[in-house]
C-alpha cells in the first residue's frame, strides 16, 4: 500500500478536492483499491463520500486514540472506503492518548494491518500544524502539496518546510515530497506566471518538483461536490477532470 498525504498548512488551496479526485481517479483509471483517511475536523471528504462523520460511530479519532481498530472504522461507501473524520478532531492535540510519547506513530501503526488490503491510502489533512499533520506525515510514503499561485501559498510552504524536515529527521526518514501541485489556476492572470516560477523554486528547495499539470479553476468541481459525485463521473470532459487525470498519470508513471 502506498500512502499519500495531501497537505498544506493553509486552508482553501484544494487539499480535500485533490484527495478526493486523486482517490477516485486511481480507482477509476487504475482499478486501484483505495482507502481514504479524513483527518480534517471539517469532514468535507467524509461528506463527499457520504460517510457518517457525526462522531457517533467509528472514526479516525477512535483509531488514533486506540479505542477502535482501523479495520473496524472503515466505512464502505459507493464512492470508496473511508475512515471518516469526527468533529472532536478539533481537540486532538489535547487528547490524553495523543500526548504520550510515540503519539506521532499512532496512524502509521493503525494502518499497518491494512497494507495488504489496499493499493493506495489517501490522507486528507487539516490546514493547521498539529499532531494530526505529524501523524499523517509519519504514516505517509509520499506527500503532495496543493498550492495556489499566490503569495500566501508561498508562506504556507515555508511553514510546511520546517514540518517536513522535522518529520524526516525524527519520525519518517523515507518520506518523499512527491510534488507541489498548483490548484485553482488561471492562466490568464499574469501574476500566476510569476508565482509559478516561485513555486518551482520552492519545490526545488524541498528536493521535490512542481507538477507540470495545473489544476484549473473549474466550477464543475463545486457542482460535483454538491452532488456527492467524483469529477470524472460528473463531468468527464471538464478541465478539472482532465487536469486531475493528468496529475494521476504524472504520479503513477514513476514506478508505482
Amino acid at each position, binding site marked *: 500500500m502506498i500512502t499519500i498525504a495531501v497537505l498544506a498548512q493553509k486552508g482553501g488551496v484544494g487539499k480535500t478536492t485533490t484527495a478526493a479526485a486523486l482517490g477516485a481517479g486511481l480507482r477509476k483509471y487504475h482499478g486501484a483499491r483505495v482507502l481514504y483517511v479524513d483527518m480534517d475536523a471539517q469532514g468535507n471528504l467524509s461528506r463527499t463520500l457520504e460517510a457518517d462523520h457525526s462522531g457517533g460511530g467509528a472514526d479516525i479519532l477512535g483509531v488514533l486514540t486506540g479505542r477502535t481498530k482501523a479495520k473496524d472504522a472503515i466505512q464502505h461507501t459507493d464512492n470508496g472506503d473511508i475512515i471518516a473524520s469526527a468533529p472532536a478532531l478539533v481537540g486532538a*492535540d489535547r487528547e490524553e492518548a495523543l500526548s*504520550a*510519547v*510515540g*503519539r*506521532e506513530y499512532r496512524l502509521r501503526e493503525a494502518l499497518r494491518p491494512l497494507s495488504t488490503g489496499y493499493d493506495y491510502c489517501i490522507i486528507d489533512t487539516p490546514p493547521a*500544524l*498539529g*499532531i494530526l*499533520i*505529524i501523524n499523517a506525515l509519519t504514516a505517509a510514503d509520499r506527500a503532495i502539496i496543493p498550492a495556489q499561485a499566490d*503569495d500566501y501559498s*508561498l*508562506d504556507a*510552504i*515555508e*511553514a510546511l*518546510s*520546517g*514540518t517536513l*524536515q*522535522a*518529520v524526516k*529527521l*525524527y*519520525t519518517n526518514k523515507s518520506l518523499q515530497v512527491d510534488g507541489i501541485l498548483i490548484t485553482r489556476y488561471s*492562466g*490568464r*492572470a*499574469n*501574476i500566476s*506566471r*510569476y508565482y509559478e516560477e*516561485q513555486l518551482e*523554486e*520552492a519545490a*526545488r*528547495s*524541498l528536493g521535490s518538483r512542481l507538477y507540470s499539470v495545473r489544476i484549473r479553476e473549474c466550477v464543475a468541481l463545486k457542482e460535483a461536490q454538491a452532488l456527492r459525485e467524483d469529477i470524472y463521473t460528473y463531468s468527464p470532459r471538464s*478541465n478539472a477532470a*482532465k487536469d486531475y487525470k493528468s496529475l494521476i498519470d504524472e504520479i503513477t508513471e514513476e514506478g508505482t
Partner: protein
Amino acid sequence: MSKSFTDKMKSKAAENPAMMFISQPEPEAAPETKRTTRKTTRKAEDSPLQAAPEIRAAATSGRPVPPRKEYKSRRLQLLIQPSLYEEIRDRAEAEGLSVNEEIHNLLRQALGE
C-alpha cells in the same frame, strides 16, 4: 567536547514549531533542549529545521515583487480570418484551453519563450 553535527541538528530542532508534536527520541536530552527553546535568541535562519533557505529568504527578507506592469493584461481587438479563428478554436477545444489562452500560447511559442 564539541557537539556532533547530528546533535546540533537535534538541538536546533527544538526551534521548529513541529517539534511541539514530536516526542523527543532521546528523553534525557529533552530538558536541555526545552531550555534552549525558551532562552534562545538565535535568528530563525540559523535553524536547519526551519524553512529551506531559499524559501525563507524570499519570504522573510523581501520576496521580489513582480513588476507592476505585468499585474494586468492588455486588452486588444484582433481582426483575423474566420477560417483561422475556427482553426484556433478547434485546436483550443482539443487541448482543453480557451481561445484566448490558445492564442496566448501560440504567440509565446512564436516569440520563442
